[in-house]
């Protein structure tokens, strides 16, 4: 299914001057990152488009090959599951950067800072006094039926009261040009290594473009991450030992774990490298046991401590929660943060922001239907082919129904699923989110993109300018997840 057709009343032709150079480029109802609604190139894209159009196609292809090679030699790959050899592929990468103006970024930055601050206060409140529940702003039932709610976190004092030290929030841009939040990733968001390596590849491949734009740097991310983690160390540990806990080589984000550990200069550990004795976490080294103070964990809650969570997990450390409770080690992120990115809580985030900060949200949510409400459920069930249905506790684009791209059997299956367990699903109208120019073969064509900025929360909130722009590489496709065939591109936040 293609979302763009020439007969679409909303289809807009570009001015004639682009006919020859951008033959495949049509505008439709979606916001176009490069062209304004009047068909004129947006000012920030002018230099970029000119540079690309002036470049002979052979040279463009040569640059593309050279950037691919640089990803391969840097080992920026992800593992494709299900093959015995453990094939490694590079994450598809688009050469045309996505531009965000300084002014747009300022709005995003403010909005995200507000949202993350509020969500953190929410977690602190829910796991302590529960004022927001007592005041009836968020129904208790939604909290206690959430599978990411961790009873074990009740009353646990976390350093600096920070639950969500590292997050990545997915933003979309609507037809009006407004950025909205699609989802918050408050557990173990990934992809930041692609943001960093994309930039590096871009600098090597098209250095001249950097000279003609004033781009805000992102290379200090690893350093910011390290100082964020350091600022969360338990008290009385002035020189904390920080480690990155990975599930191991079979995890699809293993490359990112090794990359970040190397960039920060900290040990990359697996569960079996750690042990807990007298509520203190140690790692086994050839020079004896070494105390660990801060764990940047890339392992889900469920697998972190077999004594409390899933007892069949061998990826975690027995006794970790007790060490955490005793205040002898810091975990980033805390356990139970999945509560606040549950898709059912999502609808309450604007209320949560108003409740704690007494401000109106700067970034809006996407319209969301709770199918627990019988009226809304009826509406969703009747309009399933125009809806995106998501299970509340999943991430990565798994287990979704995308209405317009679904078959009747799939829709019937989801109807049954929704009716059987309405708490487990939400529905959103299909969004025609923004498209950015991409290099497709020899020509430049628009593809749908989202944006995932990474937010670090230590002694203060830091957001490196930009983030990961993910691209739905299939023409007309709305799915950007890397596990579902998406790609990515460099994201430039311009100084002005």
């Amino acid at each position: 299914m293609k979302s763009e057709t020439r007969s679409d009343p909303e289809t807009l032709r570009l001015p004639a001057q682009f006919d020859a150079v951008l033959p495949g480029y049509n505008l439709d109802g979606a916001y176009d990152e490069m062209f304004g609604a009047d068909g004129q190139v947006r000012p920030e894209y002018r230099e970029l488009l000119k540079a690309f159009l002036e470049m002979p196609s052979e040279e463009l292809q040569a640059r593309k090959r050279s950037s691919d090679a640089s990803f391969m030699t840097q080992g920026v790959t992800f593992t494709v599951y299900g093959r015995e050899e453990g094939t490694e592929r590079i994450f598809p990468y688009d050469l045309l950067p996505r531009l965000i103006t300084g002014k747009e970024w300022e709005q995003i930055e403010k909005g995200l800072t507000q949202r993350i601050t509020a969500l953190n206060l929410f977690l602190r409140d829910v796991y302590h006094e529960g004022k927001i529940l007592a005041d009836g702003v968020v129904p208790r039932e939604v909290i206690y039926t959430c599978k990411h709610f961790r009873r074990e976190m009740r009353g646990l004092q976390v350093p600096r009261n920070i639950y969500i030290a590292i997050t990545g929030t997915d933003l979309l841009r609507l037809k009006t040009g407004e950025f909205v939040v699609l989802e918050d990733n408050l557990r173990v968001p990934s992809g930041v290594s692609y943001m960093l390596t994309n930039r590096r590849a871009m600098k090597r491949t098209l250095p001249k473009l950097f000279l003609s734009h004033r781009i805000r740097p992102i290379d200090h991310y690893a350093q910011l991450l390290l100082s964020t983690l350091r600022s969360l160390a338990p008290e009385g540990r002035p020189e904390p030992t920080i480690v990155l806990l990975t599930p191991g080589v079979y995890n699809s984000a293993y490359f990112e774990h090794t990359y970040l550990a190397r960039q920060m200069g900290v040990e990359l550990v697996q569960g079996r490298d750690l042990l807990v004795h007298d509520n203190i976490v140690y790692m086994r080294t050839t020079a004896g046991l070494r105390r660990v103070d801060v764990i940047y964990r890339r392992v889900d809650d469920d697998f972190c401590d077999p004594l409390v969570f899933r007892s069949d997990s061998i990826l975690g450390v027995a006794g970790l929660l007790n060490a955490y409770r005793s205040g002898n080690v810091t975990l980033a992120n805390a356990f139970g943060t999945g509560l606040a990115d549950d898709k059912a809580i999502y609808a309450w985030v604007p209320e949560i922001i108003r409740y704690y900060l007494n401000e109106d949200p700067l970034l809006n949510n996407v319209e969301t239907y709770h199918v627990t409400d019988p009226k809304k459920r009826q509406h969703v069930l009747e309009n399933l082919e125009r809806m995106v249905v998501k299970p509340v506790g999943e991430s990565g684009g798994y287990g979704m129904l995308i209405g317009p791209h679904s078959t009747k059997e799939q829709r019937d299956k989801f109807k049954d699923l929704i009716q059987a367990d309405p708490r487990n699903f939400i529905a959103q109208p299909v969004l025609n989110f923004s498209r950015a120019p991409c290099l497709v073969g020899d020509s430049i064509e628009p593809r749908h993109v989202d944006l995932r900025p990474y937010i670090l929360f230590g002694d203060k909130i830091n957001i490196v300018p930009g983030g990961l722009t993910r691209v739905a590489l299939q023409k007309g496709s709305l799915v950007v997840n890397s596990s579902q065939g998406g790609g990515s591109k460099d994201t430039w936040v311009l100084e002005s």
Partner: protein
Amino acid sequence: MLSRVADSLYWIGRYLERAEHTIRVFDVNLNLMLEGPASKPDARWQRVIYALSVPDNLQDRTLDDLVDAMCFDISNPASIAACIGAARENARQVRDEISTEQWQKLNRLYHSVAEMRGSQSYATVSDLLQTMLDGVHLFEGVTDTTMSHGEGWQFIRAGRYMERSTAIATLLELYYRSPFGDVEGILDSAQYLEWVGLLRSCTAFEAFCTVYTADLTPGRILEFLLLNPLFPHSLRYSVNCLVEALAGMQCEGRRSSSEMLTRRAGRLQASLSFAQIDEILAQDTGGYLRDVLGQCRIIQELTYRLYISYSVDTALAI
């Protein structure tokens, strides 16, 4: 360095040395089959099977079966492909602790061996074995030239020389147990072939000849493979390197309480440095070799207890 990482590096060293040894022993014995006066090929394969610790169920197989089982069958843990696969799996775990060159060479070796399976026939197997051997040598070369000679490198080396020491001692012990083990004086042609086979299995034939000329006697061969200080595949040389690697680790780590390990390793080294071949021959030679193997096992155990699998209580007591 994390203990897990040290463990993986040690076994990369051991598994690749084992692969190399297996390739050589297998190749030499395939060759002997061609020239030998058909005298007891079964006994020879028995010996090969024992020397390489192949599971018993490989006996009474055709030669092609044996080639497949020894070279390519990854369900046989002693096969060349399984050793290389195990080394690669360990390398994958510590991908960021070894150099890119090391990883690429090992990965390429692994994939090329996997591709060889099925294409092999008895006629070409020698070529394939040579290609594998080149791959292993290449890895050893880049290990020495591209990896920092720090603690991690010492663990790879320790693994390599531990494996080599035990492989040589096992092989010698087998030859001394065999019917031609206690011949005196000049060897007949069949015996000659067998003993040359032993030397070739340790790449030692040429080096032996430059020291002793081609006058082969079991005593001289034993002296050369046990006590020669300069030849890389002699037991003495291997133990020297092993002790060096252990001392290197100790310098790197901050540990000093390895007195037991130092004493044990030093004792084995000294006993080989000052041994007299006629004394070894006068006593129970097989017993002597088995004792060396036992000492190697103890050294490995002590190394593990010190660096890798130490108990939490002892570690906390320090």
